[in-house]
């Protein structure tokens, strides 16, 4: 069976294997990849090598891992365990879900019922994996109060800067700020622009903390139960936990597949150049664990222990230890379950697959054949051959000469053969005639 393996690079790396009637495709999006190297450990045939992660974190545009498409077995293990979904895996054009693989990581971000659909989680998500679909805004509602005066006050003690009011009505304006690992609130303050307000009192109802008090006239519009919807894209999600941390209603819960420890070697921190280098901060683009204040710091609440920062730091100041990897095992009694579970072990222990080293390189000597295939040539006439051989055959049939033959009395036998070959030959011919 012919196996063809090919790679096309068009922004995405497409590795294709055609074997018989099946085509398997592994698509690698290197922009999503941060060089954590988990696939390097997981690959059972060591087809993946880690590239220059530090240089890539400092701006080099290059894929952080390099896949040997000829060595690759197209098994899907790298796809299963990539924490950031940098791979996609297709068999005969059908996308394979991680859930259908024999072993896959247990990772999920839940949106619980206590969610009030505010704006906090989607604002802080480093991967933009959360979307907030606004169903209705104030400007969509035509009814307005005319000539009503009033007052809008916000109880600053109750207000948790959830942002629902600001995304509903232009009267409220939130002053945003950068989300940092040590300060995750995306908003600094809430401002009220009463010049636009018609004191319709709708905002009183949408504030989940009842922090807004409006002196005015309620218009007759009935607000729907929910004015916005929150949805979480599990494929984009990096399970960092920012949403869980920021949510004031404990409505977000992230289940991380890996448990571990993040260590910064503080004694050698004088080598760190937090202004010039920033490799760890750049490489941790999915989880935003690292930041600089007075010096380099990290918040391991957001860490998924992928290990990219360890690969990126040029001074080896960071160590990422993994202690557990939670997986779900779907297929119990297929012959490859053991190898997949060992891949998980290798990820935890940070070991590559042990392949047999140093095979013998032997010369296999081909057998030489001389010339072309031989043609059959007749050299001696068959009849002449037959006559001569008949002489021996006849001698053998005579018991006296046979005995001579058996006992090794050569002279007697050879004499008989000669006679048959010459003299007695003619007598036979006469007899035949």
């Amino acid at each position, binding site marked *: 069976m012919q196996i063809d393996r090919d790679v096309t690079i068009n922004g995405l790396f497409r590795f294709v294997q055609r074997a018989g009637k099946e085509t398997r495709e592994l698509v690698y999006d290197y922009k999503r990849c941060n060089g954590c190297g988990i696939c390097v450990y997981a690959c059972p045939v060591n087809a993946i090598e880690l590239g220059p992660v530090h240089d890539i974190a400092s701006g080099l545009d290059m894929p952080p891992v390099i896949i040997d498409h000829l060595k690759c077995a197209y*098994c899907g293990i790298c796809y299963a365990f990539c924490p950031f979904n940098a791979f996609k895996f297709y068999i005969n054009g059908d996308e394979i879900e991680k859930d259908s693989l024999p072993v896959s990581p247990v990772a999920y971000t839940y949106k619980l019922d206590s969610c009030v659909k505010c704006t906090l989680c989607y604002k802080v998500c480093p991967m933009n994996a959360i979307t907030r679909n606004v169903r209705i805004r104030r400007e969509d509602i035509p009814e307005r109060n005319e000539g009503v005066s009033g007052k809008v006050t916000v109880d600053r003690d109750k207000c948790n800067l959830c942002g629902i009011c600001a995304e509903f009505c232009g009267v409220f304006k939130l002053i945003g700020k950068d989300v940092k690992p040590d300060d995750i609130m995306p908003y600094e303050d809430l401002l009220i622009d009463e010049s636009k307000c018609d004191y319709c009192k709708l905002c009183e109802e949408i504030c989940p903390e009842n922090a807004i008090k409006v002196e005015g006239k309620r218009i007759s519009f009935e607000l729907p139960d929910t004015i916005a919807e929150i949805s979480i894209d599990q494929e984009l999600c990096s399970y960092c936990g920012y949403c869980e941390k920021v949510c004031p209603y404990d409505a977000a819960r992230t289940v991380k597949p890996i448990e571990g420890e993040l260590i910064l070697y503080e004694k050698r921190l004088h080598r760190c150049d937090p202004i010039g280098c920033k490799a760890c901060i750049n490489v941790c683009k999915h989880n935003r664990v690292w930041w600089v204040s007075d010096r380099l710091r990290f918040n391991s609440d957001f860490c998924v222990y992928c290990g990219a920062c360890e690969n990126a730091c040029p001074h080896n100041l960071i160590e990422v230890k993994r202690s557990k990897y939670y997986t779900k095992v779907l297929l119990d009694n297929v012959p490859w379950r053991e190898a997949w579970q060992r891949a998980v072990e290798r990820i935890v222990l940070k070991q590559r697959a042990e392949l047999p080293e140093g095979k013998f390189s*032997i010369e296999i000597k081909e057998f030489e054949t001389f010339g072309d295939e031989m043609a059959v040539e007749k050299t001696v006439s068959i009849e002449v051959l037959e006559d001569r051989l008949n002489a021996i055959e006849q001698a053998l049939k005579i018991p006296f000469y046979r005995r001579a033959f058996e006992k090794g009395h050569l002279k007697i036998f050879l004499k008989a053969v000669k006679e048959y070959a010459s003299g007695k030959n003619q007598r036979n011919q006469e007899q035949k005639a």
Partner: protein
Amino acid sequence: MRIGVFVCHCGLNIAGVIDIDEVIEYAKNLKDVVHATAIKYVCSDSGQEEIVSAIRDHKLDAIVVAACSPRLHEVTFRRVAMRAGLNPYMVAMANIREQCSWVHRNKPKSATLKAKDLVRMAVARARHSKPLEKRKAMVEKAVLVIGGGVAGIEAALTIANSGVKVYLVEKKPTIGGHMALLNEVFPTNDCSICILAPKMSEAWNHPNIEVITNAEVKEVKGHVGRFKVKIVKHPRYVDTSKCKGCIGDCSSVCSVEVLNEFDYSIGTRKAIYIPIQQSTPLYAIIDWQHCIGCRLCEKACEPGAIDFSQQAEEIELEVGAIIVATGYKPFDARRKPEFGYGVYRNVITSLELERMLSASGPTLGQLLKPSDSKPPKKVAFIQCVGSRDEGTNRYCSRVCCMESLKNAYIIKERYPGVDVAIFYIDVRASGRMYEEFYRRAMDRGVRVIRGGIGQIWESGDSVILRYEDTLEGVVKEEEFDLVVLAIGLEGNTELATKLGISVGEDGFYDVAHPKLRPVETDVRGIFLAGTASGPKDIQDSVASAGLAAAKALQLLFSGEVEFDPYNAYVEEEKCIGCKLCVEVCRFNAAFMEGNKAKIDANACVMCGMCVAACPTNAIDMGFFSDDQIKAEIDALTEEKNADPLILVFSCWYCSYAAIDLAGTMKLGYEPNIRVIRTLCSGRVDVEWIIRALKRGVDGVIVSGCRLGECHFKFGNLKAKERIETLQKALESIGINPERVKTIWHSAGEAREIAEDFNEFVERIKQLAIEDELKKRRQSNAD
């Protein structure tokens, strides 16, 4: 009852220590003894005839033979009784040699008193003996051979050619064992697989042999004549009805490459593979530990033989006999780190060299250095790696000297320019044509140097050996390109607990008698063949396999097997239906019928645990009956001929053998010891111990096999529990629990058991002094 007593002189073995006449006089005065005489050698023809005549002349109902150990001659005297028309189970023996004269040589008076005690006990036993008949059972006409190496194949063929069905179970996916992987065999230098392959093929195609590969023995129940064996057959993930054995379509596309255990890890294979080119059966197999599920093999296989849905299969077999031919495992050279195996690439083992030299190996027969795949110029062999060594194995592995000489000869033959040196301690070339082969190798130019290697270190690609040439008395250093370690053989004893056979201290299975019964184990019906019972070369393996086959056929030939009539039975009138025996029996032999217990004679293994457990003494067993043993205890305590008097209940298998061995080795221990034997320490009824203590015995020892090695698997564990409970009970009523002790020994631990006896006697003496002191203090206080 008319009892005859025959005391043996055994030349001077007994007579030299014990006063035979005194014993005879004493015996004559015992109740029911109508004839007592001494004989020079009771076991001799004339001695035996004398007994036969005496039985007839004096119309004896039972006889007592006071002589050597029943382990040696009980069967002899039973046959004598049968010749005289007496039931063979009416013979009682008193062991006054191994357990008396040989161990108490420096105390002849005490020895004579002990002999009198033992004779008195034997007479009491004989008084309560009952005639018994051997039980016969049908024998399943099939044999299980575990292990498909050269010994297993030979045994299977021998048995199958006699018309008996054989199941040949092999753990690996192909039969052939280690021999199929060797290059050439000594001393003929025949190509190993060439001579084995026809036999492998014959075994596979034989109508009477069912070869089950990739399978292991999971459980063995039952007894000789009817073993019930459960085999688990692991899945190959290849449909054998479709696989054509093409050796290549599937493995050439497999993405995973691993070290090949069939090349002893010097070569590689894929995760789907055919083990060797001559694999029998010739089917591929998927290594479930390394397959990653890329499924390329499934697509590449044209007949569509790959089947990932295969499950493990359980097969149940019923066989009359089992032959264990599980072979050896090679010594792991990493355990001798001084030789650098696993660290230096050019240090390999002898088996790896065999694969290299083999035409079907990873180098196609070329001798190459693993470091750079170039031919070596200087090769060194180091002998006795992992053998004859205090740190690893003490025994000699027998085959390595000849193997190295043979390999050295072959290297010299194929590569005349290569310098070969063998570093040895002794060259053991003890078979036929072996010494001549040694000469031929030396004539070919193989250097042999007597000396141990002190140190090995790397120098570039080569390796430097530092050794002492003991014949010259000089320490030298020499550089070599390739070093071959002649590794030893080690035992492979995972089946020991499943089969209930014992393992020797060298790690190989133990045989019943190393000289006269080299293929039988202590379990009737289970035989050993090949290197399972110790290191040996191929011809000895084949010979032992033939013997094992003959012994198995011997059992099966008559169609029925005889059992000693020691099985337990229930006296229904006494049974109160408490079900305790059913709970205690670990062999499912005791069951309830209505509200009375019953015992299945075929399932009963005769351990006696149930007999000892029954509260109403409703269960009894033949020849080791309650009455007989109680009579022995009573007889012993009629007179107190030793102070302190120690009673030992000894199990027949390990313990009695060890006590006998102490006699054979002429070790000495105190003559206060009196032994009563049972089949298993689990038979010991706690009521007997109490009876003994009541009647004046000062200390009781219950002696059995080493824990975990009981012949009946669980007997000694039960005995341990019982005695521990008894000890606590004794303590609670104010009797020192130290007076009852348990000791566990294997049949070879003679020294340990003698020491235990002496320690116990000392301790009891000490206790007597302590008790005396306590009494005096109390009376002073009053």
